[in-house]
């Protein structure tokens, strides 16, 4: 795979995510999150997961985040209400837990090679099991998998979305 897709897409996703989490204005947060999700879509496309990459932009950036913008505009959140920074003692706590999580994953992935200085090679748990096969995540392949083996979960997901629609209407209506 092209390393540039990984590095550029990963950088866009990480920087966008960090900015989205730290912006004081919620609308700016949403816009940076859109950038992050576009970078994520590039990562998916770099992994030959075309279908997932497209619905990442269509559903996430196109539908879910627009819903966020819509709600922020609807509530008319004044910037002053958003400006209050945000629990200083939890910032250290959050950073510590996030760092611990990343360190854990890196330790598992590298098999501790970063700390013990063991000669890399086949460290960690992620090993190639045989020849890497070509995996095409095209619409055809994913749809085949989805409708041949996961038809019931697919139908349940549609019921879930229906329940979510009815629930949102019921929650936001002043008088039922």
């Amino acid at each position, binding site marked *: 795979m092209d390393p540039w897709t990984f590095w550029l897409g990963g950088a866009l996703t990480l920087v966008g995510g960090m900015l*989205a989490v730290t912006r004081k204005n919620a609308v700016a947060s949403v816009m940076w999150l859109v950038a992050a999700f576009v970078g*994520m879509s590039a990562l998916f496309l770099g*992994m030959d997961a075309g279908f997932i990459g497209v619905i990442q932009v269509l559903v996430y950036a196109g539908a879910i985040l627009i819903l966020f913008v819509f709600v922020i505009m609807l509530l008319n959140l004044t910037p002053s209400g958003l400006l209050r920074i945000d629990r200083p003692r*939890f*910032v250290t706590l959050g950073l510590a837990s996030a760092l611990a999580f990343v360190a854990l*994953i890196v330790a598992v992935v590298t098999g501790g090679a970063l700390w013990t200085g063991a000669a890399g090679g086949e460290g960690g748990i992620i090993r190639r099991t045989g020849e890497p096969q070509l*995996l095409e995540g095209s619409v055809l392949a994913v749809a085949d998998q989805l409708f041949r083996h996961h038809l019931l979960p697919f139908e349940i997901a549609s019921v879930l979305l229906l329940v979510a629609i009815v*629930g949102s209407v019921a929650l936001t209506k*002043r008088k039922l």
Partner: protein
Amino acid sequence: MDRVFGEITTSHYVVLSALIFAVGLCGVVTRRNAVVILMSLELMLNGANLAFVAFSRHHANLQGQVFVFFVIAVAAAEAAVALAIIIALNRVKGGVSIDDATELRG
């Protein structure tokens, strides 16, 4: 260094997904605007999705991508319901700070 900047392996994607998840985690723990917390949650879901697709490619098995499809469907439902709750919260409390909603603390 060669192993980090050389060929892109599944490990690269897993570490990146952990980083994205951690950024989202920081947002969920530190922010108190409910809308931003929800956005950080979406970022965490995306970090998990990246790991799913990376392992799907690693094992040449499309089930990981099917699972990502379901995660996105559930995330859409979750976002719709959560935003409805936020609108209701704004109506009752006149704001969307989670510090206003502490009745369940007891």
